[in-house]
């Protein structure tokens, strides 16, 4: 396997990926809006929202692949960053309800009125402005990741210990957000959204726009990840993943690298969560549940760790399967199937779908290349030349 073939094949799959996502991002909304309802090619609105959800999951998967696939940091708490981004967006959407809530309070969301809160808590300030909420969508997860990483990476917590404390982090947040006095709607979370930037969140046009934006964000996140992993910093990340202490002895400050990539990844997860919430219409503490974060890691493993495209593909494939199975008679067995899928992939396709495909493709190319070289040599009447390393 020569790196030239590898980079070429990755570039090809990156281009194909971007074209497909861009194509879907444009065609699905167009078909929904322009074709008559009931036409064979019209994508119904509920499907637009469902696929929008998958696209957000794909962004989350990319963010996990960036740290796990390329730097060996297995976060089992990335759902927390996703949920925090979601809550930031949810807070904006709550403030947009204004006096249209059940209690008609122009400032306080319904749940606060219900709990007899006299006024808006300070941390809700500013969320009536979209730009502020949009900023918080990545500042809050980014800040948490930075603080968490600062302590964890400097104390050299690695491997399974790091995974466990990320689980603890998301679990702690789950418990916190469940509490009514936390000020985020407790158990019920934030819901009953009315509009976003003045557009009705339920309207077809808004759903299509959100779907389009999610696809654009997926492409953006993908390009950022690609830029990071193909820079020299990306090589340092791989070095840390494969031989962390060796990297230190070369004079790299490993904890700074981890902190950088972990924070970046959390910001991306936050954006994914923010796009997710208006499309599903609710954000509640269950988004913090440790199981969600583990599921997201399984998507990446299924699609192919360390391939980016695979992570996104894995998120869509597994969630498509989840939707399919959980809406049928097999619903109670979904978790078992997910577990079985994970075990099967680990045993049979350790590189995931895309990783296995890439290996096969490179192999095929090399064989074809050798075949061509051999036949050319035969035509020349010369002995086959040894294949150079290039």
């Amino acid at each position, binding site marked *: 396997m020569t790196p030239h073939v590898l980079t070429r094949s990755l570039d090809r799959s990156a281009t194909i990926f971007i074209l497909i996502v861009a194509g879907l991002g444009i065609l699905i909304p167009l078909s929904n809006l322009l074709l008559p309802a009931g036409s064979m090619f019209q994508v119904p609105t509920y499907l637009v929202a469902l696929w929008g959800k998958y696209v957000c999951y794909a962004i989350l998967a990319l963010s996990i692949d960036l740290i796990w696939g390329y730097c060996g940091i297995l976060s089992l708490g990335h759902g927390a960053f996703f949920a925090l981004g979601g809550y930031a967006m949810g807070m904006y959407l709550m403030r947009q309800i204004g006096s249209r809530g059940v209690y008609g309070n122009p400032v306080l969301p319904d749940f606060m009125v219900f709990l007899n809160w006299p006024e808006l808590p300070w941390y809700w300030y500013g969320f009536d402005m979209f730009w502020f909420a949009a900023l918080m969508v990545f500042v809050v997860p980014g800040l948490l990741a930075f603080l968490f990483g600062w302590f964890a990476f400097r104390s050299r917590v690695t491997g399974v210990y790091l995974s466990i404390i990320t689980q603890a982090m998301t679990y702690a947040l789950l418990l916190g957000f469940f509490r009514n006095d936390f000020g985020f709607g407790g158990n019920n979370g934030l819901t009953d959204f009315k509009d976003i930037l003045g557009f009705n969140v339920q309207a077809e046009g808004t759903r299509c726009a959100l779907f389009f934006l999610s696809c654009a964000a997926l492409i953006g996140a993908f390009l950022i990840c690609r830029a990071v992993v193909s820079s*020299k910093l990306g090589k340092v990340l791989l070095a840390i993943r494969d031989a962390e202490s060796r990297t230190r002895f070369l004079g790299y400050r490993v904890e*700074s690298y981890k902190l950088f990539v972990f924070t970046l990844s959390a910001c991306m997860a936050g954006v994914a969560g923010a796009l997710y919430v208006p499309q599903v219409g609710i954000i509640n503490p269950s988004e913090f549940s440790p199981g969600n974060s583990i599921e997201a890691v399984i998507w990446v493993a299924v699609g192919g760790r360390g391939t980016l495209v695979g992570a996104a593909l894995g998120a869509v494939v597994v969630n498509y399967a989840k939707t399919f199975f959980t809406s049928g008679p097999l619903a109670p067995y979904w978790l078992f199937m997910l577990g079985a899928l994970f075990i099967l992939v680990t045993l049979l396709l350790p590189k995931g779908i895309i990783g296995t495909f890439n290996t096969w493709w490179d192999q095929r190319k090399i064989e074809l290349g050798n075949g061509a070289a051999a036949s050319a040599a035969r035509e020349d009447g010369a002995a086959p030349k040894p294949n150079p390393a290039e």
Partner: protein
Amino acid sequence: MNAMETRTTSAILYLDGVHVSFDGFHAINNLSLTLEPGEMRAIIGPNGAGKTTMMDIITGKTKPDEGVVLFDGTTDLTRLDETRIAELGIGRKFQKPTVFESQTVQDNLLLALNVDHSVRGTLFWRGNKAESERIDKVLETIRLTDARHRLAGSLSHGQKQWLEIGMLLAQDPKVLLVDEPVAGMTDVETHLTAELLKEINRNHTVMVVEHDMTFVRELGVKVTCLHEGTVLAEGTIDQVSSNERVIEVYLGR
């Protein structure tokens, strides 16, 4: 320790009265050793003598319980971490060859180059001519030019050893600590490695741990024999190898 303020030794590496114990086991016992600038030193000694542990102490991987470890007469290495020590100019080749297996030979060297190692520096890094020329030169020196695009993991054991030495060259440290460089090499490779180290020693201080006595003899430098974490004998190869105690614990009769 006023050695911190005023330089009391000309040595580039100065170890004095160093102790390390792992769960009560004394791996390093009152170890004292100095390495002069420009010197090449061979370290021999039986397995478990503490040779690798000594390198761990110098490079910040292991903190000694007691003792002084100075770099360049003024810098207390026991207070610094691995990254900082590497930045000061102490490079290391591990006993078990440790290269970045999933990256190409060329990228391994690129990672080792002593250029800006900050996050920002590597994120916005653009290759330049000087860097690629240095890499070309190292590749030539370690005879891996033809393998430059191969993954380091696919190299033979001896080639990995060389790649690791090449990484040291790219790092261009003031002091090179080389742990068992010829383990698993053929006689020819061993000979070439000795030549290479002598070449490197022309402008670097080198400390080599090695069991292969032919190799040590070929280096032709001062030898220190460690045993049970302390210096047993020091001198020319002939002096050390005729030392009664060395013969008893290490060379065998």
